[in-house]
């Protein structure tokens, strides 16, 4: 199937087709120097097809040939995805660098999986087994995981295993099984298969309500605005507020099996940081390098815009694939606004009727469908897998009343809004505790959590009043509330990302510390003067701060705990330790 270019407008081209054209299929534009540029059909009108080109269109001419394929934009799934650094179209960047050098020249594509590497395959099915899409035929060890080799997800039901290779070492190209259908249709299975990125991949018994907390080890998240496995959350914030750093910390410490980092239209330098650091960092839970549980999808802001749009789908598909193996996957997308902007650029070229701020009318539904790909599922074999999605949002002017933030807030389960005031004051993570919310239940008893947050709110009110009437016009009681609210913020909600211990607080420690913090906050004080109140609270604040830096159960930790308990006992607090 061929066609000829009739219009070139940025990364949008219109092609006159001589034959049938399939919506969302891929095509290659043949540039006159021989380069083939990957593109995707996004609209068909009569014999005219509009295509978005995933490369710079420099040099394309009216009359140039376009070759249409029947496949949709797809990724290759199989062992060897972990630890990779891909562009938005699943080209491994290190291998592109070996082939093409410093620059990402258009028209170079490399297979997403190493075709020569051998994997130790162990069959789990046997010949004669009745199988269907997603059933496991065998496994290979991939780093610390057992990678399931599954019946291709598009093959539905009604297959019988006719042949299965014995245990041994195979490449992803080798045939490992032959399946035959009821009608005698015979197909070969290898360890790799393709899946179209824009179609959600979910072959399961059922989709469950996500309730199991996803521990990020970031206190303000786990305690105050929790995320759950299979849930969704977003992090909107003005530039420089700390979205990327927050996701970087999460990608290191989150208690999940696999993390997929989708750097979508952001700085290349930030990706370099991750890809140079991760191989050196040891995951304490596995003893292996963090890179072994990570996949980086990187389509930075200088890379072609259409591929930026594809990159979040590529990331979601890889996440769904590992979910099919009964693993817990976390997808971190930075920034979904750049993806939305890619849609806006294309929509403008398509001359569609624009919505607010020139975003297309389908912005909301696209955002909703993307986050819908997150889920906790029960697989057919009774095991569970999850894909959690967390996306940053970069609102224009830092104002959350804009289309992307608003559309995202409608569909996510938790909102971690970063505030400029907090980041300016270097109160990190700069999640605004007065503005953020979560619909999920976390580690901490919701009643206790609410009590702490209520106190924070009251403290804030007192501070505002105090700015007008001064300290003199505030009662000692109110003043104490403000101090205790600050205490909660300083020693618990804020966390020092650069301290070895404080950077990550495991669930048990969080619960334990939170109870102590709450006990201090709910203590009965009856201070006689503001000075006394300040001195006393500052002293206990200092204790907690040092406690945060002390390794769990170290001597220092125990010593400070003793002092804290003494303080609590002396306040005559209604100590509500569960």
């Amino acid at each position: 199937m061929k066609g000829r270019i009739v219009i070139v407008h940025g990364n949008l081209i219109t092609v006159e087709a001589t034959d049938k054209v399939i919506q969302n299929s891929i095509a290659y534009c043949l540039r006159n120097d021989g380069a083939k540029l990957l593109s995707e059909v996004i609209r068909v009108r009569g014999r005219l097809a509009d295509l978005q080109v995933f490369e710079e269109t420099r040099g394309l001419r009216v009359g140039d040939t376009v070759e249409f394929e029947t496949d949709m934009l797809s990724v290759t799934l199989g062992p060897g995805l972990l630890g990779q650094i891909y562009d938005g179209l699943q080209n491994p960047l290190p291998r592109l660098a070996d082939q093409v050098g410093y620059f990402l020249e258009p028209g170079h594509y490399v297979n997403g999986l190493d075709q020569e590497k051998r994997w130790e395959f162990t069959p789990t099915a046997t010949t004669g087994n009745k199988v269907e899409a997603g059933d496991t035929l065998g496994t290979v060890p991939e780093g610390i995981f057992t990678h399931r080799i599954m019946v291709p997800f598009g093959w539905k039901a009604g297959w019988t295993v006719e042949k299965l290779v014995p245990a041994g070492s195979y490449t992803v190209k080798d045939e490992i099984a032959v399946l035959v259908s009821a009608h005698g249709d015979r197909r070969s299975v290898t360890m790799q298969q393709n899946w179209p990125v824009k179609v959600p991949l979910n072959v399961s018994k059922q989709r469950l309500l996500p309730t199991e907390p996803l521990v990020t080890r970031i206190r303000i998240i786990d305690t105050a605005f929790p995320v759950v496995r299979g849930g969704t959350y977003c992090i909107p914030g003005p530039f420089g507020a700390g979205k990327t750093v927050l996701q970087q910390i999460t990608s290191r410490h989150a208690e999940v099996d696999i993390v997929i980092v989708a750097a979508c239209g952001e700085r290349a330098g930030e990706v370099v940081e991750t890809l140079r650091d991760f191989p050196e960092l040891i995951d304490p839970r596995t003893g292996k390098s963090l890179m072994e549980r990570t996949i980086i999808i990187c389509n930075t802001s200088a890379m072609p815009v259409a591929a930026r749009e594809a990159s979040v789908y590529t990331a979601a598909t890889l996440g769904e694939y590992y979910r099919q193996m009964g693993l817990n996957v976390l997808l971190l997308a930075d920034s979904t606004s750049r993806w939305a902007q890619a849609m806006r650029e294309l929509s403008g070229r398509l001359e569609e009727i624009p919505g607010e701020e020139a975003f297309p009318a389908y912005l909301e539904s696209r955002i909703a469908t993307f986050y819908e790909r997150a889920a906790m599922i029960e697989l057919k074999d009774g095991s569970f897998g999850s894909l959690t999605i967390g996306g940053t949002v970069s609102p224009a002017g830092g104002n959350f009343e804009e289309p992307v933030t608003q559309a995202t807030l409608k569909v996510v389960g938790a909102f971690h809004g970063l505030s400029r005031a907090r980041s300016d004051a270097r109160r990190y993570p700069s999640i605004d505790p007065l503005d953020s919310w979560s619909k999920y239940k976390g580690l901490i008893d919701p009643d206790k959590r609410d009590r702490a947050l209520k106190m924070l709110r009251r403290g804030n009110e007192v501070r505002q009043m105090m700015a007008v009437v001064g300290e003199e016009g505030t009662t000692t009681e109110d003043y104490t509330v403000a101090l205790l609210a600050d205490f909660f913020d300083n020693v618990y909600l804020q966390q020092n990302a650069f301290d070895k211990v404080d950077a990550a607080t495991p669930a048990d420690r969080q619960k334990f510390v939170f109870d102590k913090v709450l006990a201090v906050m709910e203590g009965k004080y009856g201070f006689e003067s503001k000075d006394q109140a300040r001195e006393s609270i500052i002293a206990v604040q200092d204790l907690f701060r040092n406690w945060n830096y002390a390794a769990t159960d170290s001597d220092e930790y125990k010593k400070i705990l003793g002092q804290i308990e003494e303080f609590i006992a002396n306040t005559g607090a209604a100590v509500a330790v569960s």
Partner: protein
Amino acid sequence: MRKYYDEITRIAGNVITVNATGVGYDELAIITNEKGSSLAQVIRLEGTQVNLQVFAGTQGVSTGDRVQFLHKPMQVPFTDDLLGRIFNGAGLPRDNRPAVEAKRVDIGSPAVNPVRRLMPDKMVETGIPMIDIFNSLVESQKLPIFSVAGEPYNELLARVGLQANADIIILGGMGLRHDDYLKFKNTFDEGGVLGRTIMFVHTAADPVVECLLVPDLCLAVGEQFALLGKKVLVLLTDMTAFSDALKEIAITMEQIPSNRGYPGDLYTQLARRYEKAVDFEDSGSLTILACVTMPGDDVTHPVPDNTGYITEGQFYLRNGRIEPFGSLSRLKQQVNGKTRDDHRAIMDACIQLYALCRESREKRDMGFEMSNWDSKLLRYGEMFETRIMDLAVNIPLFEALDRCWEMLAECFEPSEIGIRRSIIEAHWPKSLEEKEEKKEEELVTA
């Protein structure tokens, strides 16, 4: 034998439409009439209709003019002969010297493969304490100066250019006033760096569209030098003028604007340029310092806003000083841990104390009583402003750190500044302590 096309069917804004075939997207054309010729670039192809953006503007272009396509994108000659030369936004000499003949390179090269980038880790010393101590500039960083019109941002750029110790300095002027252009020239001349400087200057008097090419020309040349192992510093002023030119073209092309008239791809357009900042594996580096004027001092204006989302921090220039609050070098932690052991401590302490000083000033202005502590802070604040913040201050980093210690010792007790004991013991100015002790002794004996 080159083909000419003379069927110009539309002239609007800075864009013309001509009937032609075999034309590649993004390629260059020359429009010629009896008065002269002008460069243009293909921005849309539809059948035989070719839309061209005319760099010199369409004033005086007639339907009878001839268009010749060059079948290549905009290019720039690349050679050491560029050093010391000055060009306009179309890449032609503006220094009355002959054109440079050399191998030509395409502008707007593809993105650098991220795996071939290095983590930035070399500090660029500028002699400006507000930068060196508090927000260190790092090789391969991209950093804008946010400022309102009227602030000495160009002077600041020129100074950094002079003092940054780069192998090659490339200045890109967009919408530059002629006076400013001459000032840059004089500064670089007096500073003795003109011989390693290249300027691409579009002045306010030149056709608007010509400024669109300036960043690409600078960055294409800079990238080539960096690939040869050079440390390149690119200074771009003013990126708001560049963005306004983008806006003008978008409106002519009847694109639907996204925000205050700016096109929806403003972020992408700016990012493509800023992301050229790079530290190449096994080769040189390119650092970008840009100036962004903020219309109405509004940082939420689309140009500074989009810029902030792209760059690695920003400097706010206000009242002739680099603001300590809001200004941020996101790469500073890559370098300030290995300069001197007190660098980070001084950085934090001085800013925290200055923040407290501002609070005290507010309290004072509201008529609240000043405590002894407030008075100390007020005294410190003034000192900090004149001895450190003032842009006239021009001292090396270590001297600046020592100066901070002296200031702290003059105003505070060691326990009041929130710095770890061990660092204080190593750095608290001895001479001063001794002086104080002597004074005390004198008092006692008297």
